[in-house]
């Protein structure tokens, strides 16, 4: 969504003034900054726990843990990024994940084998997302309200189905998913990267993605340009639900069980990661590269607290501070970009 298009070959390109304020370079700078933050976290790790961070094999082992943890939140964040770019919000992601994990691990579902379990998780997530979309697009509910209701209801339904019991996974191939490594990297991480890559293509290379950005940027203009906003919003929320279903399979595999407590606070972590990555709550702005880096930063911070044996409380406080810091930086950037432009030209 940030490609810079020059005039066609052989035609004059107007001289670019203040290119550093340009859209494209803005995204490049943000990426550089996020990578810088990640490196800074590694340096902090190197100072506080040199035995882990300066020993190549232990460092790699630690990062595999970080990545495996990031994978499921990352998939949810990908869906959240689409929703936020379209100008909405999805508070129900954690609850949908729990519902999908419970539904796919009932004794009945498990009896059909891994294929049906995975299908059930994806279908439950997608259908619940569609319900969100219908409420928002056709019921004209504010996304915040619709998904808040879904968050409560889906969690309740998950508890009802499971009887608040943990449903152990007995199907071996599902268990293997979290354990398996390919080239030393967990399969879950490949799933995350695959989802993120497909989403990147969807956002940056398809009409669907362009329309998502347009709807978030100026809904009225998008509507008057003939874009069917309602149908589009339906698909966006269904996509977010589908991501929850994928993440549900991953979490189920990691925990070796389906549970109505899975995905607790995922909505907050996903929103925070997207915001750290530069996605605007007001819609129309956001990148998947930023969101992926946002997730990695978020999880890496948790990891630093864990390896330094600090208590969870401090971790939460630090994460809160990071969210505020990211938004403040974003606002300064916007203020700089919005500095009165020279009128006309």
């Amino acid at each position, binding site marked *: 969504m940030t*490609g*810079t*298009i*020059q*005039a*066609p070959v052989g*035609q*004059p*390109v*107007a*001289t*670019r*003034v*203040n290119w550093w304020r340009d*859209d494209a370079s803005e995204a490049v700078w943000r990426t550089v900054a996020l990578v810088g933050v990640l490196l800074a976290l590694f340096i902090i790790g190197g100072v506080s726990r040199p035995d882990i961070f300066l020993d190549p094999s232990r460092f790699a082992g630690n990062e595999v843990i970080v990545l495996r943890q990031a994978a499921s939140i990352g998939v949810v964040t990908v869906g959240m990024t689409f929703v936020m770019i379209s100008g909405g919000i999805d508070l129900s992601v954690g609850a949908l994940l729990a519902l999908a994990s419970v539904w796919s691990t009932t004794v009945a579902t498990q009896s059909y084998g891994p294929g049906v379990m995975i299908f059930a998780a994806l279908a439950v997530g997608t259908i619940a997302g569609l319900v969100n979309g219908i409420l928002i697009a056709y019921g004209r509910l504010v996304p915040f309200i619709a998904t808040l209701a879904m968050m409560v209801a889906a969690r309740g339904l998950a508890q009802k189905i499971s009887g608040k019991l943990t449903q152990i996974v007995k199907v071996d191939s599902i268990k293997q998913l979290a354990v398996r490594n390919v080239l030393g990297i967990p399969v879950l991480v490949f799933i995350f990267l695959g989802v993120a890559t497909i989403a990147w293509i969807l956002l940056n*290379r*398809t*009409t*669907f*993605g*362009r*329309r998502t*950005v*347009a709807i978030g*940027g*100026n809904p*009225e*203009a*998008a*509507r*008057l*340009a*003939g*874009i*069917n906003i309602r149908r589009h919003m339906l698909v966006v929320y269904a996509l977010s639900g589908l991501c929850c279903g994928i993440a549900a399979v991953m979490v189920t595999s990691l925990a070796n069980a389906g549970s109505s407590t899975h995905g607790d606070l995922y909505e907050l972590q996903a929103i925070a990661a997207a915001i750290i990555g530069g996605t605007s709550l007001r819609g*129309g*702005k956001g990148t998947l590269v930023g969101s992926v880096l946002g997730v990695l930063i978020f999880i890496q911070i948790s990891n630093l607290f864990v390896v330094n044996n600090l208590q969870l409380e401090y971790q939460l406080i630090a994460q809160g501070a990071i969210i505020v810091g990211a938004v403040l930086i974003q606002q300064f950037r916007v203020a700089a970009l919005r500095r*009165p*432009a*020279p*009128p*006309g*030209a």
Partner: protein
Amino acid sequence: MTAVPFLRLAGVVKTFPGVRALDGVDLDILPGEVHCLLGQNGAGKSTLIRVLAGAHQPDAGTIELHGSAVTFANPQAAIRAGIATIYQELDLVDDLTVAENIFLGKEPRVAGFVRRGVMRGRATAILDRLGHSEIPVGRPVGKLSTAAKQVVSMARALSSEAQLLIMDEPSAVLAHDEVANLFRVIRELTSQNIAVLYISHRLEEIREIGDRVTVLKDGVTSAADLPARTTPQRELVSKMTGRTIEYVFPPRVDHPVGAVALDVEGLTRYGEFHDVSLTVHSGEIVGIAGLVGSGRSELLETIYGARTPHAGRVRLAGRPLPPGRVDAAVRAGLAMAPEERKSQALLLDEPVWRNITLAAMSRYAAGGFTNAGAEARAAYRVASDLSVRPLDVSRKVRLLSGGNQQKVVLARWLVGGGSQTAARMASPGTAAPSGPVGGHAPVVLLLDEPTRGVDVGARSELYGVIRRLADQRVGVLLVSSEVPEVLGLADRVLVMREGRLIHESPAASLDEDTVLDLVMSGSLTLIEEPSTVEEHA
């Protein structure tokens, strides 16, 4: 001139990275005069206003207030110095009452509590001073008409003891009879020795209300101290442009009227317009003249499907359009350039090319995958056809002037938003005239105030584009507050008043006075709803 100017600017320079927006502006404003500022879009008017309002600090030059040099470090400093600015987008809070808006941020208080009675009393007194005691001070501003909101903005300026009122195109949002009222208020102000800096593109207004004129061109004062009433219009225009141009309408070509492209029958939306029937033939420009509030914009939006009608139907090229469905209308070959460019049409932070291909991206896509290169090339071609300046399709639309933004909106419909195009409607075998515009023009184009906030030069260009589209068999339905524009551009004119079409005739058989007479014979009041007893409690 012997009087000491209230404000004098000498050699003011303001540069932005890459642009020298002001390059030596001289301006002196006397107390109690209406000083008009003229200049094309991009001449530096907006920047100059921001400098005077304290929003920009000049890089060089001096600003003197009552003969002593001052600097306005921020907008508050300018307000304290007695300079109030009324921007085109009136910055009022819709949910607060008239009185609360007038005293926003400076409410009469006692121990932290707002003295509501005192505030209302003072607000009433100020509105009295402006000759508008009929505006109820307890009414939420959102319920007022645009004209009344403007009066409230002026009242707010008065409440801060302004000595100079800067008004940026105040008449652009007003209908003809409301402008007369605006002028009454301005005369009221000047009689109290308050100066007004009046910015407008309408030369006839300047002649009517102005005392002296300063002309800006390319960031430089190109003429100053011109008497507003006696300077010939031709001279003013030539100072702005360096060449002598006026509103230039392209010549009407006598071509046979095509088939009916748009057929509207008995369209009704209660409270907005009633039982409207009209036709637009392909290759014909139909103009609707009417005041703001006559229901013309609502009519256009309903035809387009952005509003759902209560009764009536719309047919495009013979096929009925489903009511309230913009996407279906666009696919069928209908296009609209809406009244509010920025909020209704443009993605301001996106580059020009993405704005141009917003509706047409699927035409260049394969299997849902966009082809950015093809889109940008197509956008570039259309942008260069319409002479968008600067011709850089990767530039953010926010950075373009009003006229160029409007060209971007038009360009959107010339790269093929709908699948049905005027070219296809032309009889098969005979290719549509391969005019230079786009190549994928719509069947019918709806234009709502296409030249609002557009300077004289860019206007002529837009008129030319519209005429060329008609020559390519596009049917055009045009709404404008400016009667000369409707008469100069349209083949056939419809007059709309209070939600009804009351007159129809060929443009050639009408003159400005006749149309104005038809348009205005129903009188409109400033307040949209009659005030209730409770308001005066």
